[in-house]
């Protein structure tokens, strides 16, 4: 049993990797999302109907389904982006690390900090490559130049962009190719040190090669993070997902481990969708 003092000490111990620090381990071990009775209305339209879902940690969960079934809406409830659009009404509970993010008094900024979002189209900030990655740490209070430099290099390396942009990190992010921009956005999201990675059709605007790179990154990411992806392509889900959530018209029809889901779908609707009767 570790005493509290030891716990506190261990946080500041520079010799320990973050994951090895007992107090962080305790937190990191509970990276699950638990959705209970979630309903979303947009302008009196019932978009998500009584969703209950458990998302296992450190794995890739793919949400699939035909367009307009509420995949992206579901993803947006996880980082409370619906707060920005007043016509969207969310009710129900979403437990992130055991805390209901829709209960009163929850800090939205903290919730969003836990979620690294990768949008459909890459949207670099109007600043240099370096500043794009440094933006998150800076707004969250990291001022030391050395620490910021280190973070930027670390995450640019992580997404495999460092070697490509090494000599021009101070030049505009707008000059990167679209695939590079998407990886930059991923690095930017990782730099705020989230616990979850959300991807909203993150590869749909990319060419096959860039898609492959991003997919490889997702697989690498699941060692450390819980990854939740919305995808339109069944093949992508088949390639990288550990778990599949199949949605149709705002309801969850079927969930399960990828292999089982594709081999033995239980519901008729799932079979029809997989066989391509509708999409």
């Amino acid at each position, binding site marked *: 049993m570790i005493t509290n003092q030891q716990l506190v000490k261990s946080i500041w111990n520079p010799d320990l990797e973050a994951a090895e620090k007992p107090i962080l381990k305790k937190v990191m071990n509970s990276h699950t999302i638990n959705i209970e009775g979630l309903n979303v209305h947009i302008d009196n339209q019932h978009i998500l109907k009584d969703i209950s879902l458990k998302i296992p940690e450190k794995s890739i969960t793919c949400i699939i389904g035909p367009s307009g079934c509420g995949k992206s809406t579901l993803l947006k409830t996880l*980082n409370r982006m619906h707060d*920005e*659009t007043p016509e969207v009404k969310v009710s129900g509970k979403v437990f992130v690390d055991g805390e209901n993010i829709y209960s009163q008094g929850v800090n939205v900024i903290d919730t969003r900090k836990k979620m690294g*979002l990768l*949008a459909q189209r890459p*949207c670099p*900030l*109007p600043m240099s490559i370096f500043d794009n990655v440094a933006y998150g740490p800076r*707004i969250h209070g990291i001022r030391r130049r050395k620490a910021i430099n280190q973070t930027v290099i670390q995450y640019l390396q992580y997404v495999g962009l460092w070697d490509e942009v090494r000599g021009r990190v101070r030049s505009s*992010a707008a000059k990167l190719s679209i695939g590079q921009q998407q990886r930059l956005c991923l690095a930017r999201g990782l730099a705020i040190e989230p616990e979850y990675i959300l991807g909203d059709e993150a590869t749909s605007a990319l060419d096959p090669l860039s898609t492959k790179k991003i997919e490889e990154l997702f697989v690498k990411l699941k060692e450390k993070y819980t990854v939740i992806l919305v995808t339109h392509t069944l093949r992508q889900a088949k390639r990288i997902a550990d778990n599949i959530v199949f949605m149709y018209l705002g309801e969850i029809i079927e969930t399960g481990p990828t292999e089982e889901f594709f081999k033995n779908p239980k519901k008729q609707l799932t079979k029809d969708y997989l066989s391509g009767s509708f999409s």
Partner: protein
Amino acid sequence: MVIAAIIILAILLYIIGTVFYKGLPSLTLDMITKLPGGGFYLGKEGGILNAIVGSFYIIIGALVISILISVPLVMYINFYLPANSFFSGIIRFSLNILFGVPSIVYGAFGFALMIYLGIRASLFGGILAVGMLIMPIMMRSFDEVTRLLSRDLPDALLSLGATKYEMIKVILRQLMPGLITAILLAIGRGIGDAATVLFTSGYTDNIPASLNQPAATLPLSIFFQLGSPVEEVQNRAYASAIILTIIILIISFSARYFSSKFSKNKIS
């Protein structure tokens, strides 16, 4: 359509041609470096430095006032109020009305306001009146650029855990070229307007040393020179018009230069 295009071009060339034909011979260095001497309006020597400086003072003051009000307002109706909210609709509607108000009305209103506040015709009065004139112009064009901004950027910033204020700071960088265009439009309209400054800023042959002193302006200077019976003075009015045109051109080009400099990181 071709005829329409030709008419437009012909009008433009005719105006510029007349101004340059009549004004160029009178355009001397003295015009822009000297204050009007005694009897300047009767054909004696002097320049219109008072009007050039006065116009600059007024437009800079007016810009400061209207930027300080329009930027927060545009950010507020676009990013704080819900999309298509009733209140932002009212604000945009009022801006459209203010946009169409003739400048003489701003001048008269500014004059009434000055009487109420007990201010005499002065630089400050001119700044207020021109500020009121250019504010809706600036707001409307800046608002239009802002509305075109895709939701991707605000969403990306918010999902990084930025507060609204932090978000706005980055968005303003992206919108910088649009803001500069809006400022340009406002300068173009404000610096050449005679009716607003007619009652409010007064006229003087000196450069104002404080906000309470009257200030001369280029449009009024042109007006007074044209009103002179002496032909030489009338030609000087055209020379002043050339100066005004050149000033607007310089401002416009330098603003474009800075705009491209600021927007080198802009994401298209």
